[in-house]
């Protein structure tokens, strides 16, 4: 029982972070038809924003809020500076551009800040463990699950009920027709990028709260996991990102619990092997994508 609860927390924990990141990717994909490879660097940008603000004695939670907004604005800036001039080009062009942005940001972090890890002091209530019955669960993990689910519910309410949310879904479904009914293309695209940046910020908060440091390549590993989650989920629908994220989280956690200690290093390889097999049978992901998402 104790092990099962720990396992469950691990699944929710990994799954929620991957789902948040994959959602950010899918929200942008819905508008422009490409996967933003610089998505992980938005996490890093959140991390450095948090690091500097705490350095300037900003209260932790205020710093977190500002850093999330900062990550959202960085994503908007990314679109404005790099992607908007390429509007209407092939999604492949946008994808390659996102590689370039990612590369440039890495160099800026390394040269402008430091190639080494910067510690981020995590508030006391996020460190240590709590006991549920006779089970130890880390507070950071509980925090992750609570924050991630709250964010997912907020996002769902926003997309389902607000006017902006409906505009965003309409233009993801059919961009030209959305413009015909009067939805402002530049505005929804900026909104999509802001959401993706803010989601990356929340994911980064959760990621960092369990690791306590920020470094130039912080976003790389989680972003690759999110790419995988988004692809197995299917890129057409935010629900796909959610399923993909949790499926990937469950796979990783399961292998972590099942594999003997000397084989745990092969975990990622095993996960990827399973996913390749999955994609052979369902190449469009859990929720099949739109056959013509490119524009």
């Amino acid at each position, binding site marked *: 029982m104790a092990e099962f609860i720990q396992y469950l927390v691990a699944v929710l924990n990994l799954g929620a972070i991957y789902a948040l990141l994959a959602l950010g990717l899918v929200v942008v994909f819905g508008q422009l038809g490409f996967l933003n490879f610089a998505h992980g660097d938005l996490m890093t940008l959140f991390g450095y924003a948090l690091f500097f603000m705490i350095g300037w004695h900003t209260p932790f939670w205020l710093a977190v809020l500002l850093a999330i907004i900062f990550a959202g604005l960085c994503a908007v800036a990314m679109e404005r500076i790099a992607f908007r001039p390429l509007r209407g080009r092939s999604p492949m062009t946008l994808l390659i551009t996102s590689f370039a942005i990612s590369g440039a940001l890495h160099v800026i972090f390394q040269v402008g800040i430091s190639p080494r890890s910067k510690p981020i002091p995590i508030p006391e209530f996020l460190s240590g463990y709590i006991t549920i019955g006779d089970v130890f669960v880390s507070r950071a993990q509980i925090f992750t699950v609570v924050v991630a689910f709250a964010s997912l519910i907020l996002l769902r309410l926003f997309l389902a009920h607000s*006017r902006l949310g*409906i*505009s965003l*879904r*309409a233009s*993801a*479904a*059919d961009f*030209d*027709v*959305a*413009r*015909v*009914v*009067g*939805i*402002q*293309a530049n505005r929804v695209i900026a909104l999509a990028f802001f959401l993706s940046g803010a989601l990356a910020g929340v994911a980064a908060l959760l990621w960092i709260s369990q690791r306590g440091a920020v470094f130039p390549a912080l976003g790389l590993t989680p972003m690759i996991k999110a790419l995988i989650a988004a692809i197995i989920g299917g890129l*057409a*629908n935010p629900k796909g990102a959610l399923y993909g994220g949790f499926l990937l989280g469950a796979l990783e956690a399961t292998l972590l619990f099942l594999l003997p200690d000397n084989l745990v290093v092969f975990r990622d390889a095993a996960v990827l092997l399973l996913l390749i097999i999955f994609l052979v049978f369902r190449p469009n992901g859990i929720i099949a994508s739109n056959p013509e998402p490119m524009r």
Partner: protein
Amino acid sequence: MLVVSNLCVSYGPVAAVKGISFEVDSGELVTIIGANGAGKTTTLNAIMGLVPIVSGNIVLKGNSLAGVPVENRAGMGLSFSPEGRRVFKSLSVIDNLRAGGCTLSRSDFDRRLGSVLEQFPVLRERREQDAGTLSGGEQQMLAIARALMVNPTCLILDEPSLGLAPKIVTKVFEIIAELRASGVTILLVEQNVKKSLAIADRAYVMELGMIVRSGPADELADDQFVHDSYLGTGSRESGNG
């Protein structure tokens, strides 16, 4: 109301629309008929701003649409139901209508939603259903209803009967005739020549990017050329969709 003059549109080196002029007066139902590839849809896409025009003018209520982005044309009263319906499939019926009314104020929106749902009771029944799960005919009604949300000065319909069962086709033409009767200005593009001429006030015939005939719809329906080209045989009338 809507005046198009000397409109030219090209796709690369291929001229699709070659200097056509036509107009739609207030309260009129005007139809553009012609075979596949005559340039009808291209003309409509140019009016909506979806394809760039090479030359010519498009004027709505005295305002030139040159340089007006696609997304600002709905606010000027120009509304469009595109070819192939193109409802937002992953959105519910009601969210499709919400998107259609996204330029309205909240009170206007509620009023328009009420009147559109009254006009299309089937959509009220299916309001929470995903648009992708509707039948073809229902999707066409939704596409028209979505375009009606802004209470348009000029409603443009592209092939509303395409790919629908004959019974539903009749229903769609009834709806268009009703809209005309209620005072909506309509520009209709159709391959179903007979039915279009039956409900339209005036008509233009397009061939290979040019307007080759125009006049009152009932006169064109009796015109020898139109008759030979589009109405001559029964198979032509129903079979060219």
